């Protein structure tokens, strides 16, 4: 058996990884909640954002945390454009088509990155990658602690935006009743695009938080996105608190199953939960009954 300290460290590490998972899942669940589609390009967009952080650092030595703001804005615009000018027009409003179009986007982005950067795994060197802070006798990794703080901040901002702003109200209206919202004069296509943009922006933040300690290759997004799918399904499709709690939970599960089953089988735990939840309770723990 493992000692309590090791278990506690594993749980804490899991929670901190889980915070970033939660952020990735937040983007996915937001898009699902409003557009009612699963965005299969989510992982590829995350990979693109991670390469953007990498490229900014490699070319001009931009610190990942400094890159966070401009990249978030840039990816918001990218997501907005992709939904408005590609996914929306190409899918003719049919769910099966949207599935295929986002899959097509994922294939394009992932392989364009592969063609450009090749399949090598890359990482960036920052002086604080292994720095730690002491909290109550426990040493926590500095980049991961920053990540948790930023994720909490982003979640709060997003909540404020959805609850207080006019466009936030429009998003909530479209999520609840699309036709009704349209009749009230809400531009649904624009709301869709803004929502998709927010989803992509979450990924840019996640990428900036990941890069100081993580590595990137053209396939890296897949690993994250399957985890994000699990979280979204677990927390209930479209549920924001579900995504946050689900993210933390899955982070801990991954960390513990890695501890008990070893690295290569660690991910199995996640997929089994995924399949189990899908089969037993596809609406998730926090989702409304379909």
């Amino acid at each position: 058996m493992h000692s309590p300290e090791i278990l506690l460290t594993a749980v804490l590490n899991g929670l901190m990884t889980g915070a970033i998972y939660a952020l990735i899942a937040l983007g996915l669940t937001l898009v699902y909640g409003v557009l009612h589609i699963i965005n299969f390009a989510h992982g590829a967009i995350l990979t693109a954002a991670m390469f953007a952080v990498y490229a900014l650092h490699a070319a001009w030595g931009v610190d990942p945390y400094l890159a966070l703001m401009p990249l978030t804005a840039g990816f918001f615009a990218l997501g907005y454009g992709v939904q408005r000018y590609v996914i929306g027009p190409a899918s003719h409003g049919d769910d099966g088509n949207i599935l295929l179009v986002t899959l097509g986007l994922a294939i394009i982005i992932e392989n364009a990155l592969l063609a450009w950067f090749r399949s090598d795994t890359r990482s960036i060197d920052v002086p604080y990658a292994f720095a730690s802070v002491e909290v109550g006798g426990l040493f926590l990794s500095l980049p991961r602690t920053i990540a948790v703080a930023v994720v909490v901040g982003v979640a709060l901002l997003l909540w404020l935006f959805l609850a207080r702003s006019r466009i936030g109200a429009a998003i909530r209206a479209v999520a609840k009743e699309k036709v009704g919202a349209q009749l009230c004069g809400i531009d649904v296509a624009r709301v869709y695009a803004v929502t998709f943009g927010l989803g992509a922006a979450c990924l840019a933040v996640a990428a900036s938080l990941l890069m100081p300690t993580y590595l990137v290759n053209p396939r890296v997004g897949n690993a994250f996105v399957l985890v994000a799918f699990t979280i979204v399904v677990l927390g209930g499709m479209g549920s924001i608190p579900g995504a946050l709690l689900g993210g933390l939970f899955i982070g801990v599960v991954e960390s513990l199953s890695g501890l008990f089953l070893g690295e290569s089988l660690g991910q199995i735990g996640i997929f089994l939960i995924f399949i189990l939840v899908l089969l037993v309770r596809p609406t998730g723990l926090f989702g409304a009954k379909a």
Partner: protein
Amino acid sequence: MSRAWAYGSVLAAGMGLALLPLTTDSNVLLNFLVFMLIVAVAATGWNLLGGYGGQFSFGHAAFFGTGAYAMAILQERAGLNAWVALPAAIALGAAVGSAIGALAFRARLRGSYFALVTLAFAEVFRIVANVLPITGGAAGILIRLRLDPWQFQFADRRVFYWVALGVLVCCLLLVRAIERSRFGAWLVAVRENEDAARALGVDVLAVKVAAITLSAAMTAAAGCLYAQKFLYLDAAIAYGPWISVEALLAPVIGGAGTVFGPVLGALALLGLGELTKAWIGDLTGGSVPGVDLVLFGALLILCVAFAPRGIIGLLSRVRLGVRWARF
């Protein structure tokens, strides 16, 4: 469509394809054609479930890989003859299909949920196959080279081509027979409107499970062919996302829910892929990975946007245009 035309067209197309190897000695071309046939078989399997039944699977690699691994393991670890291993491997693939189908469809997963759960199953299989000793783990598994027709290995590449073509024609005939049967009508009814089909007395669950079982069997057969052709497998080949994607892309681009769609799609996709690779290679003086797939992704989006019934749909539109011009 008369019966003679329905089956005759499949046989005629098969005969036409059978003549191809007689026109060339190029091994590169033959290898390409065999690979195209393998993808076409896998895609024909996907098409039965996705094209006719409207259930989009993103994880047909689960069936392809099961067929391929079963073929390799039954020969190398259990010492079975390849021709005995073949039906066993196909049956195993079908069993995996009906198990996943029974679980997913009983839980009433549709649309994106079904796509997700198939994707997850394929990933679980890949991770497990990558660590189990029986599959050779990350090192993969080799099938011994024994160039003997009795071992399903042929010194002449053309023979393998004809065998693969035979498998494809059998699958196409089966799809055609289903298309014309009552079961086929039920399947299309489920695709068009599941609730209405149920209201009319169609046993939706049974129809879907039967469709995924047959679909998995065909895709597993493609896996068997792959194993015998290339004689090497690892988890990323057998259960990798590439085959899930190609099995889906070929029917969508060729024309989902039509008999010839997957074959046309496989030919168009892989042909374009090779041309692009060669062209980019000439331009840059070296091979660039991924360019063919960028093109596939773009084609997929363009097809969904402008040619919802794929190449077949475009062809029939052109034919209609000609007929209109005559009048």
